[in-house]
């Protein structure tokens, strides 16, 4: 005998009841595609969040008008060592004027604009508390005139991003629970259709664990198939979206991750869904 009884039975069950297997596999495919889409969106939401975080994590440190260029550069180097600072760039008066002209379309007289150090922060530090701490530290340095960042806006955007991230996670959890509920109920129907088999197994002295095993193998086979199908569907969806907008969704890892999750989650969903469906059922099947 090449395969152990439980594996043979598990595979044979798929063959014996193809419609039941099709029903539960389809339920899993739908669930996995939904989960994959949400994982995909959540990942790209993180990209948006990092992008906005990067933009927010900019602090402009205006320097005293009398400070010489050498001291200003030394101050910039010192600022770069502060926690959360990714880089610090000295903006000379000439550069400040060029930027002004680019932004407002008008030139400004020499000696009016202050020199500054522009700090770029790690996105994790782009929150009101960290920024306030950093600002007060910078304020204490000699040669610093004023530290500027958009306090209100930073707070507001951070709150919204946090809300979006939490909502994304909540939706994924909701979809996972709904998928589990759907799969467990579909499997429960297919198990119910085979109560005669369970009754006979109990009659001849099979333990509950033994009865459960072929069903778990069957569930995992269906989950694996569902995972592959869901990954193919997700791949096709992604290809469709990329054709429509080639510049969006270019991160390879983010594009592959939902597919991998669908495959692994398929196996897990098949196993846990069957386990939940069978939990009390076997015990409640009467022999006569």
């Amino acid at each position: 005998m090449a395969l152990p009884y439980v594996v043979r039975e598990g595979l044979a069950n798929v063959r014996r009841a193809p419609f039941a297997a099709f029903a539960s596999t389809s339920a899993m495919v739908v669930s996995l595609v939904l989960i994959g889409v949400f994982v995909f969106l959540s990942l790209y939401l993180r990209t948006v969040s990092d992008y906005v975080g990067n933009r927010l994590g900019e602090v402009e440190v205006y320097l005293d008008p009398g400070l010489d260029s050498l001291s200003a550069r030394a101050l910039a180097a010192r600022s770069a060592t502060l926690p959360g600072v990714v880089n610090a760039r000295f903006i000379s008066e000439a550069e400040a004027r060029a930027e002004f002209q680019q932004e407002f379309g008008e030139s400004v007289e020499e000696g009016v604009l202050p020199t500054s150090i522009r700090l770029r922060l790690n996105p994790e530090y782009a929150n009101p508390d960290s920024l306030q701490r950093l600002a007060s530290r910078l304020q204490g340095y000699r040669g610093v005139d004023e530290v500027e960042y958009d306090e209100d806006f930073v707070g507001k955007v951070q709150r919204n991003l946090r809300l979006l991230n939490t909502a994304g996670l909540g939706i994924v959890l909701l979809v996972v629970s709904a998928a589990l509920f759907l799969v467990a109920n579909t499997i429960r129907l297919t198990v119910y259709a085979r109560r005669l088999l369970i009754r006979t197994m109990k009659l001849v002295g099979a333990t509950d664990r033994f009865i459960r095993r072929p069903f778990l193998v069957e569930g995992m086979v269906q989950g694996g198939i569902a995972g592959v199908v869901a990954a193919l569907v997700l791949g096709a969806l992604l290809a469709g979206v990329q054709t429509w907008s080639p510049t969006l969704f270019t991160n390879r890892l983010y594009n592959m991750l939902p597919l991998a999750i669908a495959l692994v989650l398929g196996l897990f969903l098949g196993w846990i869904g069957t386990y939940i469906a069978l939990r009390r059922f076997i015990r409640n099947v009467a022999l006569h």
Partner: protein
Amino acid sequence: MIELRNVSLAYPLPDDSMRSVLDGASVTVRKGEHVYLVGPSGSGKSSLLRLLYADARPSRGLVQVGEFRSDTLKDDEIPFLRRTLGIVFQDFQLLPDRSVMENVAFPLYVTGKSGAGVKRAVMAALVRVGLGHKPQRFPHELSGGEQQRVAIARAIVADPWILLADEPTGNLDPAVADEIVGLLLTLHRQGMTLVVATHDYRTVQKHPARTLALYRNKIVEIDPKTL
């Protein structure tokens, strides 16, 4: 040995009242005995058998089957009790999508046996019930009597010490019923303890043996000739 000591059994009815099946019933069946359990439909014969294979638990008293006692039997030990019994029902309870061979091999597979030993044991059981020539058939290709023979082969394949038969001839015509009873008696003569629940009094009178009747929720010993 089977022993029921002061056993009571009651079922809850849909209106929350209880229906008593046994009330302080006692009986002992020794190893190797042949016993009929008689009584009209609904008198509790099947319920008594269910107590023996632990599909029901006594509400009071003690049921002992071999070394298994109802007062100490845990749920996860029930399969091990059932492996020491062979059980046959009126409706055969064969798996329709499996061959005769697979049906009979089932008790061996579920106890973790595999390989050539299973095939040998299955063929031996089929030969004992006179179906050694039909191992590849499916239940729907067999007559009622043949299906019951397969059920008996399945019940004895793992060498139980006792065979519980719940109305084994209830679905069969008299000629076929006689053959099945003949087969059960042969197994008994080979050493099997046999408990047959039946309301077929013709069979009891034709092949008399110790007869227990369920009467007013008690088990009483009767003379089969009086049936």
